[in-house]
Every structure is written in C-alpha cells, then in structure tokens.
C-alpha cells in the first residue's frame, strides 16, 4: 500500500481517457440527443398545429353546413311560393278563358235567338194574312195593313 509510480501512470491514463471522452464521445452523443430533442419538439409543435387546423376546419365545415342548410330552405321556400303563384296564375287564366268562352257562347245564343225572332217575325205577317184570308175568305192586300202587321210582329 505504498505510493509509487502507479500514481503517475494512473494520472496519465486518466488524462488520456478524459481527453478521449471530451473529444470523441461526448460531442457526438450530445449532438445526436440535441437533434432528437429538436425533432421531437418540432413533431409535437406540428401535431399541435394540425390539431388546431382540424378544429378550425371542423368549425368552418359546421358553419358552411349551416349556411348551406339555410340557403336550401330559402330555395325551397322560394320554389314553393313560385309554385303557388303559378297555380294561382293558371287558375286566373283558366277562369278568364272560361268566362270568355261563356261570353262567346252567350253572344252566339243571343245572335241565334235574334235571327230566329227575325225569321219568326217575317213568317208571322204571312201567317196572319193567310189566317185572316181564311177567316174572311177574301184576299187581303198586305200593303194596306202593313202598319198593323209590323206592330204585331214587333210584339213577338
């Protein structure tokens, strides 16, 4: 247990190992560990950002969905009112058309009736004269009684 030159030998050995560790071991491991730390930190940051993006995309999608629903219901509402309007218009048109047809028919009937009356009036004079001739068994000059005949016919 005496002190001897081992003291020097161990000191030199110690210095060499420390130098080797400082030069060829510590820096490489330190660099690798720092780089990994940075990579992990960057990954965590990226995943956080992605989370935030996802959340904002979800809210975006929600609001857009709501807007689309609103628009769709507005369109449906519009279409419904347009349809109602069209039906009303069609009804009006149909009613007018029917009225027009009815009016035309009435006008035609009136016309026919007038024509029939005119014809009847023409026939009445002849029939009256013929009947009167039979009654008095003589010819009657129609022109002498024209005023009375016209008056009679117009009473029809």
């Amino acid at each position: 247990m005496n002190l001897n030159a081992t003291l020097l030998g161990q000191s030199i050995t110690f210095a060499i190992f420390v130098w080797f560790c400082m030069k060829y071991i510590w820096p490489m491991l330190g660099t690798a560990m720092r780089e990994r730390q940075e990579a992990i930190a960057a990954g965590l940051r990226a995943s956080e950002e992605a989370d935030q993006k996802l959340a904002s995309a979800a809210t975006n999608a929600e609001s857009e969905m709501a807007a689309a629903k609103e628009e769709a219901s507005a369109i449906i509402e519009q279409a419904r009112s347009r349809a109602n309007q069209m039906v009303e218009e069609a009804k009006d048109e149909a009613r007018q058309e029917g009225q027009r047809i009815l009016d035309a028919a009435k006008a035609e009937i009136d016309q026919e009736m007038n024509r029939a009356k005119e014809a009847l009036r023409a026939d009445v004079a002849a029939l009256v004269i013929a009947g009167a001739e039979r009654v008095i068994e003589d010819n009657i000059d129609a022109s002498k009684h024209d005023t009375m005949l016209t008056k009679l016919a117009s009473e029809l």
Partner: protein
Amino acid sequence: MSSGTKTTADYIQHHLTNLTYGQLPDGSWGFAHSAEEAAQMGFWSINVDSMAWSIGLGLVFTLFFRRAAAHATAGVPGGLQNFVEMIVEFIDETTQSIFQHKNDLIAPLAMTIFVWVFLMNLMDLVPVDWLPELAVLLGVSHMKVVPSTDPNITMAMALTVFMLILYYSVKCKGAMGFIKELTLHPFPSLAAIPVNFVLEFVSLIAKPLSLGLRLFGNMYAGEMIFILIALMFGGGVAFFIFGGVLQWVWAVFHVLVITLQAFIFAVLTIVYLAQAHETEEH
C-alpha cells in the same frame, strides 16, 4: 482459500498485496515477491495489476461509449445508444445543476470519472478468490483486481482533479485573485493573513485528500470485508452457508456503495471545479 498450508494472515496479506514491478534488492528489475519487498522498491516501481485493470476497464468504458457515439443518430436509438444516452443525460443534468460556467471539459470529465470509477469499483463484486487464484495458476504471484482499493489509483485521480482546480483557479481569478482568496478570506484584514492562509490552505489541500482517500477507504474496507467473509468458507458446512448468505447480503449492499462512491467522486469534482471558477467575492 487456496491451500491448507497458508495461515489466515498469509491469505489476507496475499489478497492485499499488489503485483509490483521495480528494482529488486539485488539490483535487478522484476516483480516483488512480497509486500515488504514491494515497499523497499521505493517510488520508482509500479503496481502492474492496478494499472492493467484500470486501463482495461478504462478501455471498456471508452470503446463502449465510442461505439455508441460513432453510431449515434438523432432517430430512434438502439439498446447501447439508449443506455449510453441515459448516462450522458444523467451526468449532463448533474453538471448543469452544479456548474453554471462555460467549460466543455467538466461534463466529459465527470462522465469519465463516474463510469470509470464505477467499473473499477464493480470489480469488487467479483468473488475475491476467482481472479487472484486464476493468476496464481497462470504463474502470477499477486493480483489485486479492484484498482480503486489501491491508494495510488484513487490519489492519482484526486491529484489530477487538484491540478485542474489549481489551473482553473489561477485562470479564472488570476494569480493575484487566487492568492487573495487564500490570504484575505474568511477574515478580510492584513493582520489575519497568517490565520486565513492556514485555514484556506488546509481546506484547499483537504479537497484532493478527501476525494482520493474517501474512495480508497470505502473500497478497501469493502474488499476487506469480502476477504473476511471468504475466510469463513474454509470453516465447515455451517460456516460455509453462513458465509454465503453474508457475502450475498454484503454484495447487494455494495452495489449501492460502489455506485454512490463513483457518483460522489464525480459530483465533488464538479463542485470543486465550480468553486475554482467562482470569481465574485463572498
């Protein structure tokens, strides 16, 4: 015990003697045959077993860690890299919590001390007879396998740390600043210089002494107890079983001790060097 002809004292003595190479009494160079002969060799002799185990374990440390460092990637680390990085991170955190200055030497120094001293201490857990008896079979008379039970080894490391303390003290505080710290502290008066110097000088010298002797003392005592427990194996079946249990208990306890001692050596080195970098008055 190797043979029945040896006495207990011989057995212990054999375990505590280094394989020392130096100048023999007859003037030739060779290995000492006993502790007395080794002592007579004086300073210019060398404990070959301590040096060989120390260098071998240092190589184990550097080669393993160098392998991890050479293949270090920032990607997913493999088993070896993971293990090495765990130690690097542990040392780095410890260093940063104690040492606030900028110095690229401190952390690698602390890691070398921690791992190397740990490996040297770890040799204490190898059953005390295995390697020395193997050495005897191979024709080597003595073999102390735990380098940290050799005061030369622990004091050499402590003194190297002491050199760094002196170097950084002078470098950071300046020669005058360092002398002032030794003479005008803790009592800042001219009359108190002798008292201050004695106090500060003792505390300065105490650093390497306590650093080296603490490790040596702990490991030497631990080794001694392993040797004493090993003596029981020759005392019959009951003693054999009792010794086996004791050895197991002491080894489990020693796992804590060797780690703690390696950690204390590394941390105190960082603390002392941090103090050497401290420039402001306190």
